[in-house]
């Protein structure tokens, strides 16, 4: 019987107590870090989690079945490993907020381009919120995505001349013109 966290399937080693203690021996620690990086990315991808706040409880970091929980040092170590690999970013100097890039920014940019092509939006204009939450994006990975990440991907595309970002009519939203 597979253990789950919500609808996320957990691997057998999630019940292995040493998995929740930061290992001091170098080779063991490296393996442990790899396993946590993969698990964090898998979980965030399937659950559409974009942000991990270290001050708050993150379900993946605790296992009530074996009564173990990652301490702060371990959490920071594993997230920093993701950051080093370019799969996450610290949003603050204190390392309390971590943006998870289960798709890299470049990948998101490609997904946006695909979305534009699939929907014939080559020369149209949309607001950022429409991209994120509008009808067109339903059923795609863009739907419900984190706004910070979306903006970064759009800025990358703007840098490549594929889109133009401008201030919209409403004060708090921006518009995007595609010139793909």
């Amino acid at each position, binding site marked *: 019987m597979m253990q789950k966290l919500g609808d996320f399937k957990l691997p057998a080693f999630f019940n292995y107590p040493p998995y929740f203690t930061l290992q001091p021996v170098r080779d063991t620690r490296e393996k442990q870090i790899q*396993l946590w990086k993969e698990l964090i990315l898998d979980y965030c991808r399937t659950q559409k989690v974009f942000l991990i706040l270290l001050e708050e409880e993150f379900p993946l970091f605790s296992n009530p079945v074996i009564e173990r929980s990652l301490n702060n040092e371990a959490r920071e170590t594993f997230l920093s490993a993701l950051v080093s690999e370019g799969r996450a970013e610290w949003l603050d100097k204190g390392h309390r907020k971590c943006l998870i890039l289960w798709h890299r920014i470049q990948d998101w940019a490609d997904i946006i381009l695909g979305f534009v092509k699939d929907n014939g939006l080559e020369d149209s204009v949309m607001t950022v919120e429409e991209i994120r939450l509008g009808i067109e994006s339903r059923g795609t990975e863009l739907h419900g995505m984190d706004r910070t990440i979306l903006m970064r991907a759009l800025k990358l595309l703007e840098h490549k001349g594929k889109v133009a970002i401008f201030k919209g009519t409403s004060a708090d939203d921006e518009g995007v013109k595609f010139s793909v």
Partner: protein
Amino acid sequence: MASNNFFVPASVTSSGRPVLVPNEVECNLLSNVDIEHDQDDAVSFPPLKSGHFILTTHRLLFLSSSCSSTAVAIPLSVITHIFSSKRSLKSVFHSPRFRFQVSATPDNRILDSDPGRVTGLRSVVITVVVRGKGDWELFLSKMWECWRGRAWETTPSETGPASASASASLYASDGLVRMVGVGGLLRKEQEMWESTDRSLQEAFQDLNALMNKAKEMVMLAEKMRQKLLAGSSSQSNSANDEELGSKEEMQDWLLSVGIVSPVTKESAGALYHQQLSRQKANVPPKVQFFAWLVALGIINTREKIQRRNPKTCLSPSCPVMLRKFDSGVMVIQSKSHSDEEVFGRLRALVTKPEALRHGISASDAAMTLGIAPAMAKEHLLTAEGKGLLCRDISPDGFRFYINLFSEIILDDLFLVKDYGIYSTWVKASSASG
């Protein structure tokens, strides 16, 4: 040093070394620290300046540099919290420091006993300011381990003040080595002793350190001393015939190397007495101690020091080695006890179903290996370093499991092969429910 009753007094020897209780082992040292308290604590103590700060399995000891005969202790059992050290901008400019919290009584003393029986306790935060250049972070992590290790709980309490002080020292109050009977030791297996390849010459020079750490030898010594004394008082004791014979031979060799026997000391008019007083005057305690090891056949001196008469040898010669662990703990170990053998036994222990589910503690390993918990801990850490074990630190304590990390495939996190230790572990842990 200003007198204060806050700390627990600690004894030191005439050469300024701390007197350790049975089973207590030194783990780490910081030279040149100050001990201070938080200003807004209700209980307080005058700060302690410039001293050596020693971590043992049981206590923290402060030895003042200026007044080497005074020392104070903080039992690890009274620590309620150890603050994690956070680096801050401030720490760049000041001496590093770490803090921990202890329980104190309303009349401004550290508890020296079970806190459960005293009411009205207060919390006092103690700050250790590291003035010297020692690795305080290592000290702090060792302090965590010792605090979690709770070695004071596994120490059997000695009965009576006399035996407590007696067991702690190989020397009686008159400076002579107290001797012990031979029967028990000869039957005792060599496995008690840990070893490494080091020349006997070095072992001889390091005897001071050896003497401080060889607590098992002390316990043995005490047991055998009792046996010898018991044997001397009962004339016809058929069960002890074999022992009596060996006892006399034992006394022979001991005399030949100038060691005093308590039996001869205590029986007035023993014919040994005249010989003894002549010989003992010329033999320094260190040599007496070393010769005792030789006499018992624990150290083989054929290569180095002197030719031993094989006729008087009661036990097969067993070469020993002096081994030093990363933590600084030194032990004597018989060569027959290699690391591989210990690892084999640890592996067998840690792959049992119960251990697969719940891991093992240093006490569990100690019982299986037949050694002291502190030694077992060293072996567990060594095995961890070699990749055999992994640690699990939790409110349940400091435990070790078989290392499964090496068995898990990164490309397929859900793959568990049908064979191998990972599969065995999965079955064992699902069985417990």
